[in-house]
């Protein structure tokens, strides 16, 4: 647990440094809690892409707690804010549901968020857990997307079901599930082409893939993961909303958290749409896909240096 925490912490160091530094700048050297302090806290959240409205709400809750609990010392505000964020992010979430035989995982998202890389990491992880994995090259649109998945498949030692470029992804989905049943694999992970959520025809294509999976195997897909780039701003809310409306999203994967982007928009998504984050991508290595733990995520964002040992 401590090892996990340290890795998460490491990957979030930049996020944390920025935020913690800012929060600490705010609370040190102040003797009382005033509007200016609240405004500045709100700004820290906005800068982390939490979004103006959600930031406003969080700070409002903070105000109410301060009032209700008669808190006078500004130094306690950081912890309180952290608690409020963790509360929004929810209790510790279950990770992906892989109990079905085979479990079918559909991975979707807009262009360039890191779907294929995430799939490779997830497949690797399943392999490490001793599961037999089948990858499905459902991105038949982007040039060389199939090759990209195949390169990963070779590296991890996992078979990839593919059709020609330009083929109907629903047909690939169907074949893949037949193959999966025949081979008795444990997990089927399907890649899809990146698509902007406002492209109606592409979203229809995705719905078809979803329908075909379900027809070929009732209950499938068992997990539908929306991959979000942590660098994305408020548009991620639209992405989550529209993909969810189209095919039902069971969880988010937040990628590229190893940069300076903070991915705060997931707080807004969780608050608005109640979709949990299940994984975070924290680097380019195959091992860099981590479970998302709301409490620790919030703590890692706000914890001061001496505190993390408790976790």
């Amino acid at each position, binding site marked *: 647990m401590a090892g996990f925490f340290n890795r998460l912490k490491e990957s979030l160091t*930049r996020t944390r440094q920025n935020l913690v530094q800012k929060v600490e700048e705010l609370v040190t050297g102040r003797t009382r809690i005033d509007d200016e302090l609240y405004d500045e806290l709100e*700004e820290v959240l*906005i*800068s*982390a*892409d939490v*979004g*103006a*409205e959600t930031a406003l709400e969080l700070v409002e809750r903070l105000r109410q707690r301060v009032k209700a609990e008669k808190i006078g010392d500004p130094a306690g505000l950081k912890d309180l804010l952290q608690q409020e964020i963790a509360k929004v992010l929810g209790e510790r979430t279950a990770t992906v549901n892989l109990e079905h035989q085979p479990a079918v995982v559909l991975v979707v998202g*807009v*262009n*360039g*968020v*890191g779907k294929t890389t995430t799939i490779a990491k997830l497949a690797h992880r399943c392999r490490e857990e001793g599961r037999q994995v089948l990858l499905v090259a459902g991105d038949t*649109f*982007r*040039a*060389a*997307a199939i*090759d*990209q998945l*195949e*390169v*990963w498949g070779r590296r991890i030692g996992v078979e990839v079901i593919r059709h020609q*470029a330009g083929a109907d992804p629903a047909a690939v989905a169907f074949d893949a599930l037949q193959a999966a049943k025949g081979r008795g694999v444990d997990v089927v992970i399907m890649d899809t082409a990146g698509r*902007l*959520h*406002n*492209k109606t025809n592409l979203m229809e294509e995705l719905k078809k893939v979803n329908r075909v999976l379900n027809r070929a195997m009732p209950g499938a897909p068992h997990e539908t993961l929306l991959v979000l*780039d942590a*660098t*994305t*701003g*408020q*548009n*991620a809310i*639209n992405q989550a*909303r529209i993909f969810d409306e189209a095919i039902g999203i069971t969880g988010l994967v937040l990628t*590229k958290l*190893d*940069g*300076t*982007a*903070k991915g705060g*928009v997931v707080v807004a998504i969780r608050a608005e749409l109640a979709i949990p984050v299940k994984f975070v991508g924290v680097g380019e290595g195959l091992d860099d896909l981590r479970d998302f733990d709301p409490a620790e995520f919030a703590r890692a964002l706000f914890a001061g240096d001496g505190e993390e040992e408790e976790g």
Partner: protein
Amino acid sequence: MAMFEGLADKLQDTLKKLRGKGKIDEADVTAAMREVRLALLAADVNLKVVKDFVGRVKERAVGQEVLASLTPGQQVVKVVYDELVALMGGDTARINLASRPPTVIMLVGLQGAGKTTTAAKLGLFLRKQGRRPLLVACDVYRPAAIKQLEVLGEQLDLPVFNLGTEVSPVDIAVKAIAEADSQGRDVVVLDTAGRLHINEELMDELRAIKVRVKPQEILLVVDAMTGQDAVNVAAAFNRDLEINGVVLTKLDGDARGGAALSIKAVTGCPIKLAGVGEKADALEPFHPDRMASRILGMGDVLTLIEKAQAAVDADTIREMEMKIRKADFNLEDFLAQMQQMKKMGPMDQLLGMLPGMNKMKALKDVEIDEKEMKHIEAIILSMTPEERRNPQVLKDSRKRRIAKGSGTSVQKVNQLIKNFEQTRKLMKQFADFRGPKGPGKGGSKGKGKAKGGFRLPFFKV
């Protein structure tokens, strides 16, 4: 689009009560600036940039005379818009070409920004301008990145230079330029690997390429959906490489693209090109003024007007506009207009460009069905000129005749008439709502500046 209520609309609401006031005072502006701040933040403009911007607008707006034709709300929108255009840079920036070929253009950016796709699109873009581009695959890290560029090159019939994944990107770039020389290629487009701006090792590699091949253009490729972090990314790339410009990708999404403003403000570099679709030809010169409208949620009025101007003659529009304003608009005009609009392209595209669509509650869920349009046309064509000009004369027997003549039903005819009346009312409101105007009022403002004048009716039977 439907998610957002445009800033223009919000400001209208906030400042509605001020209608008729002669001057904007500080209290008005403070209320308005709250909305401006929220709108810009919702569009992902960086917080610091927003603060500076709001401060400047506030200064400018206080004490301004409200132009006779504008409400205070509109006046504030005008100030905001003007400032935003000024900040974005008014003119479309061009790609620098070397005096002595080959020109080297280097594309850099984070993972997933769209560099490889942009490289291919840029190749096509340049060829259309009579250049002979060579695409170069310098991304030796991402699996199948080279293959991706090769496939794209093949599709577009553009040559692609690569040395596999075992050669350093610096050497690939150097050899590519020698190759371009020998093949008579006059522009070299370097596709580099995506990297984090905080990855020193990979940033060093880009610096090394820069030192060796001295590109005329280093373009930072940025996803239009980028949030607050855009400033950090742009500032870091600019510090390390001194970028010349930006390519904004995925603008065909529904992100407001506030990152564009942040990047311009932080680096001072112009945004030169915009990726606007999946197809290879979907790369366009970037128009800062249009982006300002988009960030504000004002719709892409200029594009709409340009489309309209390309397809419809100006006199007809002017005549139509007068009629709309006077609410003296009948089915005959509607038919004429519908026929004009057919020339402009698919309806839903046109609709998306209109500002204030959210305000029109009745239009919010309008789905434009081309088949329905045909029915409408058939119904109107089955009317006598008298009936078209004056739908009030339509009694049951006439309606039955029209239904028969058009192959529809009396219900459809009734629906059309009812919707037409509603639309006429809506249009009157629409006509009353005049968007912000260009600097100065009245007079001929020339092509592309005639905002706020051209309105179209839409409805569904």
